[in-house]
């Protein structure tokens, strides 16, 4: 089999898994307790916190562990709005955010929260001028993703951060599709809150984190415990957190080599695919993109049919984000980018990772070309 769906999830690296194992059945104490056995678990959690902080160029006390990216995004959105409702009820987001940003806001809209969605260009990049104009006196939060979860386009985060700072508005950035893959130093980006998810950079599923800059006001969404400095109650997922820490350490250490490899794979794949399917349109920004992503549209085919046919050949890709693939819902991201219905239907995502070889991308391009051309003849 060839897995080409690393944007949906990545395998846990062996070094990460080895680091996690003792925390299932050897060092299993509750980190909150006071005895020496608990201290070992607590130290492991704090060590991981330090490593995640290093990946982001943050202080360890600015990291809050969660059950994953979706929870971290919910915490950021709901937590900031609840903590700042005396100041205003207006939020600005982009039109291409993940559901874990959009849905909490749709729920809060029933309680009077107002949301402005800012458009994107044909590559999926947020229109910064439009964003600036959308800000009102009662705007309390701006939330824009670092990399788009479908097409991989990197957003102009620094520019948006400057605007947010000038206007005194909290800026949250959903970094789930970027952190651990591309550089994400929070001071350089200028963000106040940043979301990351371990399974997107070779850590385990079920663990994520929120960077919360000192001084940012946010209320917890899971209450009833003293963990995570009061921002997230619940006994820590110690093994998962340890795994996330190790994955962050490796990502930080190996990032430049991994990026170089991904860029090579990306350009070789695009070159080979264009030979097979010259009409394929590459979606997303040509240079400002997370290089693990190759999102394409082919007129005259159904992306889902290509996914199914490639799957029967042992090649695994996706036709949209996992949530949308299951619900067969048309992509709001591609619609916001102005793609025609035909190109939205013909969309598919190939994404590569550390285990991918050049031979793999060559074979994926060749088989995808065969499948696409055969389906188009029908």
């Amino acid at each position: 089999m060839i897995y080409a769906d690393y944007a949906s999830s990545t395998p846990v690296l062996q070094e990460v898994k080895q680091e996690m194992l003792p925390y299932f059945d050897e060092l299993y104490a509750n980190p909150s307790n006071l005895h020496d056995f608990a201290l070992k678990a607590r130290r492991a959690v704090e060590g991981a916190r330090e490593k995640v902080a290093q990946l982001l160029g943050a202080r360890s006390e600015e990291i809050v562990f969660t059950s994953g990216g979706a929870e971290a995004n919910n915490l950021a959105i709901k937590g900031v709005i609840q903590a700042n409702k005396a100041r205003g009820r207006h939020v600005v987001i982009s039109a291409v955010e993940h559901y874990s940003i959009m849905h909490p806001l749709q729920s809060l809209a029933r309680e009077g929260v107002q949301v402005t969605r800012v458009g994107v260009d044909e590559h999926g990049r947020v229109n910064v001028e439009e964003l600036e104009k959308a800000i009102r006196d009662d705007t309390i939060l701006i939330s824009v993703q670092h990399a788009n979860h479908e097409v991989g386009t990197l957003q102009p985060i620094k520019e948006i951060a400057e605007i947010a700072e000038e206007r005194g508005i909290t800026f949250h950035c959903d970094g789930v599709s970027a952190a651990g893959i591309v550089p994400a130093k929070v001071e350089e980006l200028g963000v106040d809150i940043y979301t990351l998810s371990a399974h997107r950079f070779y850590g385990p599923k079920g663990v994520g984190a929120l960077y919360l800059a000192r001084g940012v006001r946010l209320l917890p969404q899971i209450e009833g415990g003293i963990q995570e400095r009061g921002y997230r109650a619940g006994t820590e997922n110690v093994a998962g957190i340890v795994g996330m820490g190790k994955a962050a350490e490796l990502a930080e250490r190996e990032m430049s080599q991994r990026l170089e490899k991904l860029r090579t794979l990306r350009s070789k794949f695009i070159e080979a695919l264009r030979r097979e399917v010259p009409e394929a349109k590459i979606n997303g920004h040509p240079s400002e993109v997370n290089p693990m992503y190759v999102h394409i549209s082919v007129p005259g085919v159904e992306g889902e049919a290509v996914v199914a046919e490639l799957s029967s050949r042992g090649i695994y890709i996706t036709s949209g984000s996992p949530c949308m693939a299951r619900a067969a819902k048309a992509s709001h991201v591609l619609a916001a980018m102005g793609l025609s219905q035909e190109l939205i239907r013909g969309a598919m995502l190939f994404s590569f990772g550390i285990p991918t070889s050049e031979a793999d991308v060559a074979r994926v391009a060749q088989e995808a070309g065969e499948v696409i051309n055969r389906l188009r003849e029908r």
Partner: protein
Amino acid sequence: MKAKLSVDCVGMHCPVPLAKAGEALQKLAVGEVLEIVADDEDIIEDLPAWCRVTGNEYLGYAREGGIIKAYIRRKV
């Protein structure tokens, strides 16, 4: 309309009701009707589109206060 099964999606946002409808349809025989109870307005546009994609039949919807009751028939 008489439905064999009803799924409660009140308070849930699209595409969650679509995914729940897909799961619930699997419990029905071909020809049987599913009711989806929701309050996300997006369902009015999304459900007919979802039926076209999945090959099922969209039968329509009715409003009861702020609640939308939509009906689909399993065809495949």
